[in-house]
Each structure stands twice: as structure tokens, then as C-alpha cells.
């Protein structure tokens, strides 16, 4: 079975950067126009949501201003501390553990080829297995405390990083490896100075997948078994028909998800600046 997870996230090409020497004023205008072009639809949608639900009496779709009022009241102090902080802690620990084990495991598999060949099908099975089905067994094994949540987040988020690390390290340019051999670099040295950097774009792609999975499992684990956390908050509000509260939770979750992704992309761009620079050169 061929592992073909390599090309999924990297396929998206970044728009080439604008490099022109225009007058600063015109450039500013241009950028302003671009920003406006990117934002107007978003603003329109929020406005539509506001207007359409303004006099809504549907229990499921309360007016947006009611939701926003409630959001400010509930989330800025109490719920943020009670529900958001523990969720974020579980997520951070779980994601970090998954990332470290994923990259280290990839390196180990690179060093020990037999292990890689032998264990790839198992890894692939666990990657393909929808992680939420494991929740019941994790609850049986670890109870419903914080440990279970961190464990399932880490477990589920491990596979995308591991598989991409394996794949990225396997497809390092053979010429580089031969050069390293000719120079007499030790395997460890080769790993640190050649294999890891060469595989890092794909490892980053794997980590980005892992982050999505980790967020998903954070919410799902709180929905199934918990007394705190943002997932619990949303599901609890839904089950007690407090739809305004439910909507505030959904908005907070959406914003948190977006911010986490944004942070990831920024860090990725900074760490892999050399790679994006190279690619932009190739495309030019």
C-alpha cells in the first residue's frame, strides 16, 4: 500500500509576492483596495446575519445582537476561565506531545529501515481510523479526567505528523545523502543537518494537519465526557435549549480555531522562510 499523504497540503501555491517599484502612495491605495476587496463580503455576511435575525423569534436562531451581548457577558470572564483555559491546556500539551513523538518517531524510522517497512501498515491503519471511535476505549482506560483528553488528543494528532515525517525523510534528495556520505558525516549528523531540514516543509504540513485533528478531538472529547471545556459548554447549552449560549460557544470556538491556525501559519512562515524564498525564486 502506497503512502500518499505527501502532496496534500503542499499543493496549494502561495500567490507570488508583488514586487514593483511604484510610488508609495499608489501602492498604499492598491493595498487598501486589496484589503477592502478581501473584507467586504465578510462584512456583508455579518450584516445580513444581523439583519435577518434582528426580529427572529426562532428558538434556534436568536438575534445576533443578543448573542453578541451574551458573548461579552459570559465569555470575557467566567466562561473563558472555566471552559477555555482547560481546553487550551489540553490542546497545547496534547499537540506538543504528538508533534515531538511524531518527529522523533519519523527520525527513528529513518534510521531503522526495517522498523519503517514493518510498521507502516499499522501506522497507516491508525492514521485512517477515525480517531473519535477510540474515545469510548480511552474513557475506559483512563477515566474522564484531563489525562484522558490529553491522551486522546496526542494519540489522534500523532499520525499525520508521523506519516508526513516518514514520507518527507524518505524523499530527501539522494544526491544530498550521497554527498553527506562522501563527506563522512555520521548518521546522526546527517539526520540533523540534512534530513530534518529537507523534510521540514512536509513535517510542517503534517503538523498543520495534526493541529486540525487536535482541535477536533479537543472539542469531541469534551462533548462526550466532561464537565468543563468549550465543547462541553456548547453541547450542554444545546441540550438545555439555551441556544443563545450555544451560539456564543460556537462563535468563540470558531474564533479560537482561526486564531490557532493563523498562529501556526505565521510560525511556519518564519521557521521555513528559506523554503518559501526558494520556492518563490523557482516560480519567478
Amino acid at each position, binding site marked *: *500500500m*502506497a503512502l*500518499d499523504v*505527501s*502532496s*496534500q497540503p503542499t*499543493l*496549494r*501555491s502561495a500567490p507570488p509576492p508583488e514586487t514593483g517599484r511604484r510610488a508609495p502612495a499608489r501602492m498604499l491605495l492598491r493595498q487598501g483596495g*486589496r484589503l477592502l*476587496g*478581501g*473584507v*467586504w*463580503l*465578510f462584512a456583508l455576511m455579518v450584516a445580513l446575519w444581523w439583519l435577518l435575525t434582528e426580529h427572529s423569534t426562532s428558538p*434556534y436562531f436568536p438575534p445576533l445582537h443578543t448573542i453578541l451581548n451574551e458573548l461579552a457577558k459570559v465569555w470575557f470572564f467566567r466562561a473563558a476561565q472555566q471552559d477555555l483555559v482547560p481546553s487550551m491546556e489540553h490542546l497545547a500539551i496534547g499537540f506538543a506531545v504528538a508533534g515531538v513523538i511524531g518527529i522523533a518517531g519519523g527520525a527513528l524510522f529513518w534510521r531503522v529501515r*526495517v522498523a519503517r*517497512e*514493518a*510498521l*507502516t*501498515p*499499522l501506522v497507516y*491503519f*491508525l492514521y*485512517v*481510523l*477515525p*480517531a*473519535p*471511535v*477510540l474515545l*469510548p*476505549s480511552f*474513557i*475506559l*482506560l483512563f477515566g474522564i479526567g484531563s489525562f484522558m483528553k490529553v491522551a486522546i488528543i496526542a494519540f489522534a494528532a500523532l499520525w499525520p505528523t508521523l506519516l508526513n515525517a516518514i514520507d518527507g525523510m524518505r*524523499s530527501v534528495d539522494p544526491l544530498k545523502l550521497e554527498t553527506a556520505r562522501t563527506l563522512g558525516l555520521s548518521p546522526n549528523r546527517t539526520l540533523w543537518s540534512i534530513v530534518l531540514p529537507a523534510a521540514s516543509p512536509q513535517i510542517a504540513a503534517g503538523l498543520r494537519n495534526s493541529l*486540525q485533528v487536535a*482541535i*477536533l478531538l479537543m*472539542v*469531541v472529547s469534551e*462533548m*462526550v465526557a466532561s464537565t468543563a471545556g468549550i*465543547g462541553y459548554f*456548547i*453541547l450542554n*447549552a*444545546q441540550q438545555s435549549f439555551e*441556544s443563545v449560549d*450555544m451560539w456564543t460557544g*460556537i462563535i468563540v*470556538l*470558531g474564533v479560537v*480555531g*482561526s486564531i490557532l*491556525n*493563523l498562529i501556526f501559519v505565521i510560525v511556519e512562515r518564519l521557521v521555513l522562510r528559506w523554503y518559501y524564498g526558494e520556492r518563490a525564486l523557482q516560480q519567478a
Partner: protein
Amino acid sequence: MATLTRLRRRVPGEVHRPPDTPSRPHRRLGGLGVKVLGLVCAVLVWELLGVAGALPADSFPTLPETARAIGTELGGSAGWRSIGQTLAGWALGYGIGSACAIAVGIAIGLNRFAFRSSISVIEFMKTIPVVAILPIAVLEFGGTLKMEYTLVAFGVFWPLTIQVVYGVRSMDPVVRDTAKALGVRGARRFGLIVLPSAAPFIATGLRVAAAVALVLTIIAELIGGAAGLGRDILVAEDSGTSALPIVYALIVITGGVGIVLTTAMTQIERRALRWHERFRPLERELA
């Protein structure tokens, strides 16, 4: 399509590729042996742990128990019905979501203004965890098949749309300009230029979306209460320690469904895009 491929290969400056080299069957076969051995070893470890009594009896069943439970599930109609329900939710949601995504994505990709206006909205929607929508879907539709495929379609739509949009916009400028110079327009341009360059992006997006869709289907069953494998697992877990092997049997079966779907999607992608550079044998060999 053939025209385009020829066009592509004649692009000045592009490296001429050497003729395809035959793959190495011996190594592949050896690799397969090691892979099977790896799986056998994993299963053996499970069995040995069971025999040695190292597995906690109240949370982890032994291999024979689980194997027997898998047999019962797949031997009777109940197991297959659940698999069918899960597959139905998956297929409907995946089908609706990807059809919409391809239509919308192509429309946005072809229009500069539409692209600039909507891309940030779509990128934002993509980052919202889909489970956030689950309670709304449950409120609106209850624990039904409709809730299930709505959730799946929603989750499939955003990332796939982005993939399609970038695929349509990824046209090779030389190909695009050549088509323009030759006066290829309208439907012919769409079929000859736009679709072939977007196809690999769309195919990759479809393959990834298939896996995402399965995860969401399971979540809709596990939390939303729609019928299928996910709900069976929760029900089995709630019915006590004696049903433990069934829980694990269902987990293995779900994994099997995942493998079948993913393998099928990978194969379809490879067949459908055989003409594309990425899937020509040489490239695969190097990759």
C-alpha cells in the same frame, strides 16, 4: 487532453524526461513481506499480552474475544446494516459537499473579483472546527441521516472549495497564453485548459475530503446520535464490560471501512490522472 500534455512537454526550458524506467518488482515484494510480518507481529503482541494477563480485564479485551466479536458482527445482519448506514451518511454528505465545492470553486477560481472577495471568507470558514456546527445541526434535524450528511457536507465543502479555487488558478501561464494566442475560448478552453490543470488539485482535495468525511460521519453518530457504527460503539460501551470485545470489534471494523475508502480513493485518483505528470511512473519512482 492529449494536446495539452504535448503542449506542456514542449514548454521551453523544461527538462526532457528520460523514458520511463521499469519499477523494481523484487524490492516491492520484499517490502510487502516485511509489512505483513509487521502486522502479524503486532497481532501476536496483542495475543501474548492477553495470554500473559497483562491487559486490564475491564478495559481491554484479548485478541480471541475481539476476533470472535468481529465474527459475530460481520456474520449477522446488524453489523452490515450499521456499516451501510455509516456509508450512506458518508456518501451523501461527501457527494453533496464535493459537488457544491467543485461548482463554487470553479466559479470563484475563474473570476478575479470573486476570488478576491470570497477567499478570506472561505479560508476563515475552513478554520472553524466543524464540530461547532454539530449542535445546530442536531437542533435542526435531530439525530437523523439528514443531520449526518449536512454536517459532513459542510465539513467537506470549505477545504475542498479552496483546493478547487487554487487548482483553477494554478494554470501554467505559458499554457494559458498559448491558448489565448490560438484563440481557444469558452467551453473548449474550459475543457482543454482549465479542467486539466485543476484536475490534480481537485483529485487530491477529493481524496483528503473522503477521509475528513468519514471522521465527521463517525462524530455525527457518536455525538449527534445518528444510526451507524459510531452510535453502535457508544451503545456497546454503555452496556458494560461484557460488551467490551464488541467495542473493539467495531473499532477495527471502522478502521477497515476507513482503509477500504482511502485505498479506493487513492486508486481512483491514480487511474483518473494517469496522464498527469505527477503520476507518471518515473516521478513516482523518484518521489
